[in-house]
């Protein structure tokens, strides 16, 4: 194939047909405007954060192995669980799927060469890093003991920990998230390949689009909230301080106006990944494509109307609690639409149980439990009992870990050949899945029981009757940890000595599998013109489905 000189610039431009990984040298990474490389840098950053947050989680569980002191004192424990929350939420989960995986896959799925604003994309990454530095500074200089929710007046008046740099970190990283959202919205609107109509848009793109809308609409509210909190702590503004005529519950309203939609920033892209995996490994078009796509937007919209369910016992009026409870139940509709449509997609599909699909199915199972237990908490009378117990902890871990992390890992397995050009060891991948799946359920199923029996969350100590369940949960965390270590080893082995990946190792008909692995510099060797949908298996030729 003849090489065409690239006319970007006078200097020796890299060959657009070469792999995006071909160029060497640190500067070629740090100053890159290539969405794929920026995505890879995000990927490394979020994986390091995940490791850090994971270590904190293991420490928290270890401390809870026995009542009273096990390995650390109560103050340290408060710091460790707070850091676990802050790191996992702000440094890992929020950027995990959209900014890392979405950055790499969105332009490829759209059949284009880059996101709409490549410089802004790189700036978003550095803003994230800048925020992470603040977080690191806070960790070194005292950490935080407020929990990831920074509730006032404790965070504004009483905590002696390094709250300001940590809030600053979340504030700054918020802008990274907003700018990524702005970038993706413009990208989905204006960068689609010729023939890629909205009705042919891959479901992952729909999910990223819905997520971006939430990022743009919700994150600024967090930004102003955290800014007010910083000034409340520095200047004692008084607006969150009851002794000065302010209102601490106002902070909770502000915080959850962001943080409930933020849960959808975390879960909606995960659902997008699962939609892709389910279709590819069932060799079928999704059942109800349009409804799956619209349910992402539905979740984005409903997400803004339900924040009050975090304040049922914070002194809201009875009337508001009823409204918020009813609205929260509505969230079950778009979530249910997705679950049922995925299951209907599986029905009579030609199911292939390779590792990405295991995670896809694992997601359906675990997210269903996470979603349904959310309805328990949305019920007013039940919430009074379960509020601030381990039931809540278990519920959101089923959604965030059982949902988002499982989908993130599933997506990593699924697109790994595209990212790296290497295959991984399927056997080890399956072992890792089994360990993660069992470990996760052992860890958190026991916490549902603990919570329903009244074990409050965030406590350092507990009554002796909770010992067994706490120990089961801690042992579960070890199995989960081992599962992730096996996975890490498997991925490192793949990078070092993995078999070369074919262009289409899963036999998918979606656009991203028609281009070489690893992705070429310009994503495609020829400008793609889309003539059919991403899941049109019924129109596929033998050659398209071929795995080599």
């Amino acid at each position, binding site marked *: 194939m003849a090489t065409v000189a690239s006319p970007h610039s006078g200097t020796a431009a890299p060959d657009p047909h070469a792999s995006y990984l071909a160029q060497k040298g640190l500067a070629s990474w740090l100053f890159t405007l290539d969405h794929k490389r920026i995505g890879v840098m995000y990927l490394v950053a979020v994986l390091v954060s995940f490791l850090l947050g994971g270590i904190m989680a293991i420490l928290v569980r270890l401390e809870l192995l026995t009542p009273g002191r096990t390995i650390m004192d109560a103050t340290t424990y408060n710091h460790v669980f707070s850091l676990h929350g802050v790191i996992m939420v702000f440094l890992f989960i929020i950027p995990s799927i959209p900014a890392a995986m979405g950055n790499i896959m969105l332009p490829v799925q759209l059949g284009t060469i880059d996101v*709409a604003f*490549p410089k802004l994309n790189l700036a978003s990454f550095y803003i994230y890093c800048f925020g992470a530095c603040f977080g690191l500074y806070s960790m070194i200089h005292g950490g935080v003991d407020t929990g990831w929710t920074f509730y006032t007046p404790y965070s504004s008046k009483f905590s002696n920990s390094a709250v300001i740099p940590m809030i600053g970190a979340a504030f700054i990283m918020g802008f990274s998230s907003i700018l990524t959202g702005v970038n993706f919205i413009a990208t989905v609107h204006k960068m689609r390949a010729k023939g890629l109509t909205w009705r042919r848009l891959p479901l992952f793109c729909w999910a990223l689009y819905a997520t971006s809308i939430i990022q*743009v609409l919700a994150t600024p509210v967090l930004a*102003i909230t955290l800014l*007010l909190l910083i000034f409340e702590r520095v200047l004692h503004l*008084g607006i969150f301080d009851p002794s000065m005529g302010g209102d601490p519950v106002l902070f909770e309203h502000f915080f959850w106006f962001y943080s409930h939609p933020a849960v959808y920033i975390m879960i909606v892209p995960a659902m997008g990944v699962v939609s892709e995996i389910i279709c590819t490994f069932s060799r079928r078009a999704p059942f109800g494509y349009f409804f799956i796509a619209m349910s992402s937007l539905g979740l984005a919209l409903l997400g803004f109307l339900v924040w009050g369910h975090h304040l049922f016992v914070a002194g809201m009026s009875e009337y508001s609690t009823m409204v918020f409870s009813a609205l929260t139940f509505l969230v079950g509709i778009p979530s249910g639409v997705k679950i049922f449509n995925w299951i209907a997609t599986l029905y009579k599909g030609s199911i292939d149980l390779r590792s990405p699909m295991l995670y896809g199915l694992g997601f359906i199972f675990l997210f269903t439990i996470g979603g349904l237990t959310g309805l328990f908490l949305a019920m007013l009378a039940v919430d009074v009992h379960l509020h601030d117990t381990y039931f809540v902890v278990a519920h959101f871990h089923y959604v965030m870990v059982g949902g988002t992390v499982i989908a993130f890992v599933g997506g990593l397995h699924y697109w790994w050949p595209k990212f790296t050009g290497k295959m991984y060891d399927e056997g080890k991948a399956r072992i890792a899945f089994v360990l993660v799946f069992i470990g996760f359920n052992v860890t958190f199923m026991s916490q549902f029981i603990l919570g329903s029996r009244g074990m409050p969350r965030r406590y350092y100590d507990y009554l002796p009757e909770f010992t067994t369940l706490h120990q089961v949960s801690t042992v579960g965390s070890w199995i989960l940890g081992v599962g992730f270590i096996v996975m890490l080893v498997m991925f490192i082995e793949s990078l070092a000595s993995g078999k070369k990946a074919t*262009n289409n190792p899963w036999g998918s008909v979606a656009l991203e599998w028609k281009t070489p692995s690893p992705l070429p510099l310009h994503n495609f060797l*020829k400008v793609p*013109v889309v003539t059919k949908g991403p899941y049109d298996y019924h129109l596929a030729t033998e050659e398209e489905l071929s795995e080599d």
Partner: protein
Amino acid sequence: MTSEAAAADEYEHKEGDGHDHGHGHDHPKYLAHHFDTPAQQFDAAKIGMWAFLVQELLFFSGIFVAYGIFRSWYPEMFSAASHQLNRLMGAGNTIVLLFSSLTAALAVRAAQLGQKRNTSTYIILTILCAFTFLVVKYFEYHHKFEAGLLPGQYFHPDHHHLVAGSPELPGNSHIFYSLYFMATGIHGVHVAVGIGVFIWILRRNERGDFSKDYYTGVDLTALYWHLVDLVWIYLFPLLYLID
């Protein structure tokens, strides 16, 4: 090779476009390499800017909601505390900002018509208005500092500096000034950022970056400026004109 052949079969490609993703000979200098047409680039920039402005609105919304809640709780306090703000300066600043929005819009018009000198003139006028706004704001702040009308715990009204004949300030008036300083402070930062961006756009205009066919930078900066103006148009009556 099989893969490339498959890709070629499946996806027709435009004749003459070859492999270079639209890097045709008619690719103007201002067109970034990942866009096909100037219109696509302009539309993308416009959508991005509107999305950004929406987030700006939501950013300010937190302050407005806090304002609404506390005003409904303490209406008398808000009315008394508002008395201490200088309406003349506030109204003057409103006129200055409104005028600067006009000059910003005229700068866009001049850029669209390719009138480089007029564009520069209007941008300079806009920048001057923005500076005027900040100078007036400085004198307002200065008076508040002298009178001890400060946010939160630093609130210590000095009766010599208060407006003569004004109603007694209730004890929780610090909340009004907390919100006043947060709102006008954040708005002021936006004005300052606007000045910086306009100076950059002015330099680009002088350098000859813009033309009838490409004036995105001027257009987007003016959009941002209108938002800064709009926020002030709400802040002025809410803070200065309540009684």
